[in-house]
Structure formats: structure tokens, C-alpha cells
């Protein structure tokens, strides 16, 4: 699937210092490294950008475009900052993101039409995040309909089903998978995306990667078009490129409902087996899920 590198994001100390100090080189280096790692898009997350939104976004987009040629995903909740970035993107950009809330429909969505940009539309609406596949479908259909009405075609829409952290609502994972599977039927031509890291939010840091990798494989199988990922997770990128076929096989067999014998698996396969069982809700999640 298409990979969007998430590493230029405001919560990182390096990034936030460089942005507030208008110090381009560390950010340019980060962009170049991500491109080298093999991602297809770069996400630029400047957060709510309350101070000097236009200047911050334009400065950042220019700095990044100086050194890489990849298309950009602009990640901010601030429509003013968003607009400033869209205006100067060299390649057709991605608005990350709009939603089904009244405010987003009024302020964010119209920018997609105005600047002929791709737009991530999440299932979020004014009632919150829908709890199952059917309510996600209902929410997204309404927003897509609205977007079409503004002149935004399905091909430019990337649907985001929103994944809750595994410790908050494990059962939602299956709802998200089911929803992704039904997308081509309910909204032909739309693309899709998801922030993998959201699933592993709250999980012990050193264990986050394996959860992100397995959910990526599972969602790819369901037909997900793209994902927002850690560009430097080599195993994730390898899995995405079809490398590690033994691991892919383990995950697919768990998806098919097969029970494997842990003793027959290598230690690495065993970890992916246990993780796949948690992702597919065959095992209740606990932070020690790999130790059982």
C-alpha cells in the first residue's frame, strides 16, 4: 500500500524546536531520510498552529520542497495554515484532514475544491466517533455526499475510519476492518488511509511497532489504500514490500481463523502470531500479551 511518512510531526522535540526556531536543516534532513527509506508521501504535522499559521506552514512547505520531490500531506486543524500550504504545493497535495463535523464541512472541505487537492475525510461527526462498521458507513456516506456536492470527486477522497487505541476498545478493530472491506461497495472510487500509530497509543513503547505492523497487514488485506506510518520502521516497510513472507503467512492464517502451534514457530513468528490473535480479537489485549 501507499505509505505516508509521519515523522515530521509537532510532538517531536526536534521538529517543534526546528519549526519555532525557523531552522530548516534538521527538518530537511528528516524529509530526505524519510524519502530514502522508501515512503511515498510525507506528512507535515504542525498541529493547531495558533501562532503565525500561514507563515509557519508556507515556510515549512518551501523548506521541504527544496530537498524532496514527494507529494505532501498537510496535517493541521487550522484552515488558515492549511490554505497557505495548499497554495504553494508543487504536487497535488493531501489535506489531512477534514471530517463530517459542521465546522470541517464549512472551513476545511471547501479548500479541497478550491485548490484541487486530495482530502482525507474521517468518519468523525458532531456526535463523535461512530462505534461500529455500519455507523461509520452512515457517517462517511453523508460527508462524501456533501463533498461531492461541493464538486470533490470520490477519487480525491481518502476515507479515514479512525482506529481507537487497543487498550480503549479492542473490539473496534474488527469494525474498522469490516468498514474498510465495504468501502468499494458504498463509495466506489474512494481511497482510504489510517494513522497506524493510533492503535498502539498507550502500549509500552518498545512493543508499539509490532502492533502497527500487524494492523497494516490486516488492513491491506481488507483493501486499505494507504497508511500514515513511521518511515524508519524497517520491518514495516519490508512487510509492505512483500518481504518476510513467513510473517505474512502467519498473520493471514490467523485472519483465516487457524490455530497454530507456537512450538512450531520461530520466536519472531510466535510474536507475530500472538499479536495477530490480539488484533483479530481472538485474545483479549493486555500490555503483557507477548509474555503469555
Amino acid at each position, binding site marked *: 500500500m501507499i505509505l505516508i511518512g509521519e515523522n515530521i510531526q509537532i510532538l517531536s522535540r526536534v521538529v517543534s524546536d526546528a519549526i519555532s526556531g525557523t531552522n530548516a536543516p534538521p527538518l530537511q534532513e528528516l524529509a530526505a531520510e524519510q524519502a530514502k527509506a522508501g515512503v511515498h508521501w510525507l506528512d507535515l504535522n504542525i498541529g493547531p498552529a495558533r501562532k503565525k499559521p500561514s507563515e509557519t506552514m508556507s515556510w515549512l512547505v518551501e523548506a521541504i520542497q527544496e530537498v524532496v520531490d514527494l507529494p505532501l500531506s498537510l496535517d493541521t486543524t487550522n484552515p488558515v495554515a492549511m490554505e497557505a500550504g495548499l497554495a504553494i504545493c508543487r504536487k497535488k497535495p493531501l489535506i489531512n484532514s477534514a471530517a463530517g463535523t459542521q465546522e470541517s464541512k464549512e472551513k476545511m472541505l471547501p479548500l479541497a475544491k478550491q485548490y484541487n487537492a486530495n482530502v482525507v475525510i474521517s468518519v468523525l461527526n458532531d456526535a463523535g466517533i461512530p462505534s461500529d462498521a455500519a455507523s461509520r458507513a452512515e457517517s462517511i456516506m453523508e460527508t462524501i455526499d456533501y463533498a461531492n456536492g461541493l464538486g470533490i470527486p470520490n477519487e480525491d477522497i481518502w476515507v479515514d475510519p479512525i482506529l481507537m487505541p487497543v487498550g480503549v476498545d*479492542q473490539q473496534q478493530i474488527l469494525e474498522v476492518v469490516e468498514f474498510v472491506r465495504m468501502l468499494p461497495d458504498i463509495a466506489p472510487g474512494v481511497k482510504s488511509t489510517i494513522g497506524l500509530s493510533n492503535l498502539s497509543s498507550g502500549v509500552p513503547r518498545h512493543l508499539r511497532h509490532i502492533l502497527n505492523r500487524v494492523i497494516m497487514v490486516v488492513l491491506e488485506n481488507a483493501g486499505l489504500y494507504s497508511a500514515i506510518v513511521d518511515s524508519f520502521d524497517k520491518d514495516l516497510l519490508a512487510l509492505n514490500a512483500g518481504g518476510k513472507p513467513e510473517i505474512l503467512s502467519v498473520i493471514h492464517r490467523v485472519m483465516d481463523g487457524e490455530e497454530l502451534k507456537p512450538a512450531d514457530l520461530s520466536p519472531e513468528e510466535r510474536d507475530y502470531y500472538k499479536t495477530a490473535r490480539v488484533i483479530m480479537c481472538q*485474545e*483479549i*489485549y*493486555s*500490555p*503483557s500479551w507477548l509474555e*503469555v
Partner: protein
Amino acid sequence: MLENFLEKYPGTVKELSLGAEGKKVTLGGQSALPFHDFEGTPGRPRLVLEISDSAPDDWAAALQEFYADVKASPVAWAQKCVGYGAEMIFMNLNSMEKDLPASQIASGVRQVAEAIPVPLIVFGLGDKEKDEAVLPQVAAACSGLGLLLGPVLKENYQVIAEAALAHGHAIIAQVPMDVNLAKDLNIKLSKFFPLERVVIDPLTSSLGYGLEYSYSTKERIRLSAVVHDDKTLQSPLIARVGREAWKTKEANQDARKGILWESVTALNLLLAGDDIITLRHPESLKLIKSLIN
């Protein structure tokens, strides 16, 4: 014929025997969901009355009045509660709040344990440092008496569980209303402590004050244990209804309300899967017993 419509579940709640020789009470062992006795080996919930190891100043007025003659004497109080039909006694160590020496608290516990014909459940403050200092001493002083000791938290489980193990007691593993955390604490305990000697306390909220959350968590734990055969969650469950029900404003308005509040909370939680229900008023015990038997 009817068997064709019954579910056969793969999981069983582990059986746990509490109390000293001659005074044993068993928990768990069920392979069916609460009150679905037709589907497997049934559960047998235990109704328990609460006392304190020193006269409590934070119990509702109606209870203070009811137990006026015994509340300053834990042995007499415990015996009176056995008389009311309590299947076990649950003792709150509220003297820990007064920072009495641990050895004194521990010998007090032993006195009560020896004076009653039923098992004793001993409960600290939920203060991770204080409990860590006192509960192991209680465990040692009551060696061989088969107590159920708690609470054991993720911050202090190592020390308390080791002492419980050394002296033949069972433990109450307490987590904040979350099935994932309950599973995690049990996994950590299982490294050195037999899970058959663990009771899970995922916290209890009373009617009107969050009962639903408590219910959902307990229901999930029990479903995983019985329906999904999750070996890390096959522990009996405890609901400390007494304290929760009697701190509500309704219970403090009058005794009748308190009894109803306590009983309704308890009945709901029995449906969720609780195996031990602690109560503060014997009228509640009587009421619940008449409904579930």
C-alpha cells in the same frame, strides 16, 4: 432434546478453597455463565458481611447504630455477623489509618480468624506503601489460616503475593475497572504465584454511581473466562458492595434506602458474575439470599 439448544463452553472458573482446616468455603469451579445452571457446573455466590478491625467513624449512621454494641470489638462483631448468616467475614483494616503498629494489627486479625467458624477476608487501605508494610505481617501472623488478602496492586504485588504464597493465603488482585489491566496483573502474578489462588477485584460502583461500568467489566472478565477459555482471567470475582452502597447519599438518608441500595447493587453484580458479595447490613443479606436460592 433440550441439550441440542444448550451452549457448552470450554472454560471453567478456577476453584479456590479458603479458610483453615474444618472451616473451608469454596469459590469458583463453574463452567456456566451466572445463573445459567442448566448449561454446566453452576457457580455458588458467597454472601459476606463486612466489619472493621477498630470502630469505624466513616460508616453510615444507621450502621453505626445497628452495630453499636459490637463495633469496638472485632471478635464480637465478626461472631455476630456469622450469626446473621454471613458465609465469610470481610474485615476492613481501618486501624491502618491510625498508623497502629503492623504487629498489633496482625495479631488482631489472627484473633478474629481463630474466633469464627468461617474464612476471613482481610482488606487493607488500597494505599500501596501502607498495604505493602502491613499485609505481609498479617500473612505471617495468620500462617496456615487460609485468608483471602487484599488489595494487591500492580505497584506492590511482588511483596504481598510472595508473603501470601509463603503462608498459604489467597490474594485479591485489584485493578481499576479495566479487563486489559486485570489480565495484565494476572499475567504478572502468574510468573511466581498460582493463579488458582487469585480473586479479581475490578472495583465496584453502586447503583446510580457507575454500576454499569463495573457490570460491563465484570461481565467481560467472566465471558472471557468461560466462553473464550482465557486462562489468565479464570479467577473468581469479588464485589465490595458494602462500602460503595453505604457511602451514597441515598443510603445515608435512611436505613431502608441503604438496604435496598445495597441489595439492588448486589443483585445486578451477581448477574455480571461476582462470586463474593460483601454487604454491611444483614437485612440485605437476608433479602438477597431469599431471591437467589
